[in-house]
């Protein structure tokens, strides 16, 4: 198992944001956490990256307990994230943003980064045209591409994607999800957090439904997509 989350609870101030959740991310898979706004999905990803302190529970990555490992070390170990709201560096160019993704790598020479630039620019040819532009001047979709591409520059084994479809036009959403499948096909494990349940479930090998900080359903993507309760609440309620 690449990532094992066990009985994780995280507080946000005095409020319990996540309560006793456990889930697994097998190597090579796409796993998704779906749920409404405020269900604790982003908090879960932030905790895996080390930005939030866990109150109880444990997270194992490749068998290693992450409890005492700092956020930068986690990136070095192969966990990278494209955060919610993209979190691009607006004043840096697209190229610099992508280079920031490779910040922890030991060899950051142009030659060492070239294959990764190739990979990212093949996935997102649009960024090639924008490479010298400050990222703050890009459209929302392009910024999302920068955020995902940047996460890949760390050469992660596990990439955490927080709401990659947020605020994008339907056509662009299709495109982004296709690219996520492609990233996975290239061998990177994906943990995907989404409000767009229909799209996420279609692509996920495994899915977990979060409601107010707890996991209330789990199964394969198809199982959850077929679950009447999930359909009613998250897939437009066509029953």
């Amino acid at each position, binding site marked *: 198992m690449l990532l094992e989350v066990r009985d994780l609870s995280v507080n946000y101030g005095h409020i319990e944001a996540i309560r006793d959740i456990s889930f697994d991310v097998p190597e090579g898979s796409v796993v998704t956490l779906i749920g409404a706004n405020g269900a604790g999905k982003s908090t879960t990803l932030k905790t895996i990256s080390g930005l939030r302190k866990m109150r109880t529970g444990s997270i194992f990555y490749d068998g290693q307990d992450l409890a005492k490992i700092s956020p930068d070390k986690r990136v070095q170990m192969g966990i990278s*994230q494209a955060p919610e709201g993209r979190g691009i*560096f607006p004043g*840096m160019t697209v190229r610099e943003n992508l280079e920031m993704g490779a910040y922890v790598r030991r060899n950051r020479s142009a030659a060492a980064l070239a294959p990764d630039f190739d990979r990212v620019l093949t996935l997102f040819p649009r960024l090639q045209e924008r490479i010298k532009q400050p990222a703050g001047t890009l459209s929302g979709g392009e910024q999302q591409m920068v955020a995902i591409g940047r996460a890949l520059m760390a050469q992660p084994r596990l990439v955490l994607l927080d709401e990659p479809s947020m605020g994008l036009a339907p056509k662009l959403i299709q495109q982004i999800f296709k690219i996520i499948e492609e990233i996975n096909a290239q061998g990177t494990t994906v943990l995907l957090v989404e409000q767009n349940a229909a799209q996420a479930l279609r692509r996920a090998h495994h899915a977990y439904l979060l409601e107010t900080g707890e996991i209330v359903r789990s199964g394969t993507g198809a199982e959850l997509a077929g679950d009447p309760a999930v359909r009613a609440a998250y897939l437009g309620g066509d029953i």
Partner: protein
Amino acid sequence: MQFQYVLDNFVSLFVGGLVFGAVYALVALGYTMVYGVLQLINFAHSEVFMFGTFATVWALWLIGADTSTMGVALVLSLAFAMVVSMVTSGGVALLLERVAYRPLLKRGAPRLVALISAIGASFVLSEAMGLRGAIASALGLESVLGRYVARSRENLGLPTDRTFTVQFEIFGYGVTNRDIIIVVAAVLMMVLADQFIRRTRTGRGIRAVAQDPETSSLMGVNSTRVIQITFLIGGLLAGAAATLYMLQVGATRYNAGFILGVKAFTAAVLGGIGNLRGALLGGFVLGIAESLGAGLFGGEWRSVVAFVLLVLILLFRPTGLLGESLGKARA
């Protein structure tokens, strides 16, 4: 108002302002960089500078440089003093970060608390210098340290010769070797700092933290380390400024940091706090405006001119002359 005087001495006042502005700009860089990464005014930065002025004098004492030191020996002595000053100020800045800020920020203290801590640290550092005689005698080290701790609350002068020779004239004003040294050294430091921020990995880390600390962590930027390095760079620049200040002014005392610190901070705000090039521009604008203002209204109006200028500029450009943050500065 002495219009005729200003007109007659315009070049001299302008160059004088430029020289002082260079010192302001170097110190302003420290304020603006720390603000960039922490959104915090490091009020103790003035003391980081003040320690540098003392280190400059002590370094010259240590190697026995005095008014008889001339030529190449003098240049080398001053260069050595500047290195010692930079190391000292850099060390004080690191200590400050470790003791006065990091414990607070780690516990999630509000910025206001860190600000009070900064003001407190400023007093502690200044008085520690002013009471160094008493501290030394309490520790029984008075005889060992001798003149280094004597007359703690009085002025301490630069021991080397301060008669500078005119190198060339512009419009009747003789530019001295001192003017040249100060401006050239200051500009060199600024270029180095600017290139460091723009070109190196750590520099990019500093810009990233300034733009978005949380995402920076996701990229694997160790923000504690970035903050530390930012303080260090600010300290090194303040140390360089301290030696140049001693060349210009000739003397220091334990509370010499205060006014200079306020002016440098003003320069940083004037240029747009958080913006490196803004701090440089602000420093030079402030120095020149002060100098011309002093010529126009008389020396005692120097600071009044500086602050009226600040108010006027902020009235029309609330984010300063180059109101763009450090993070958004482009390569």
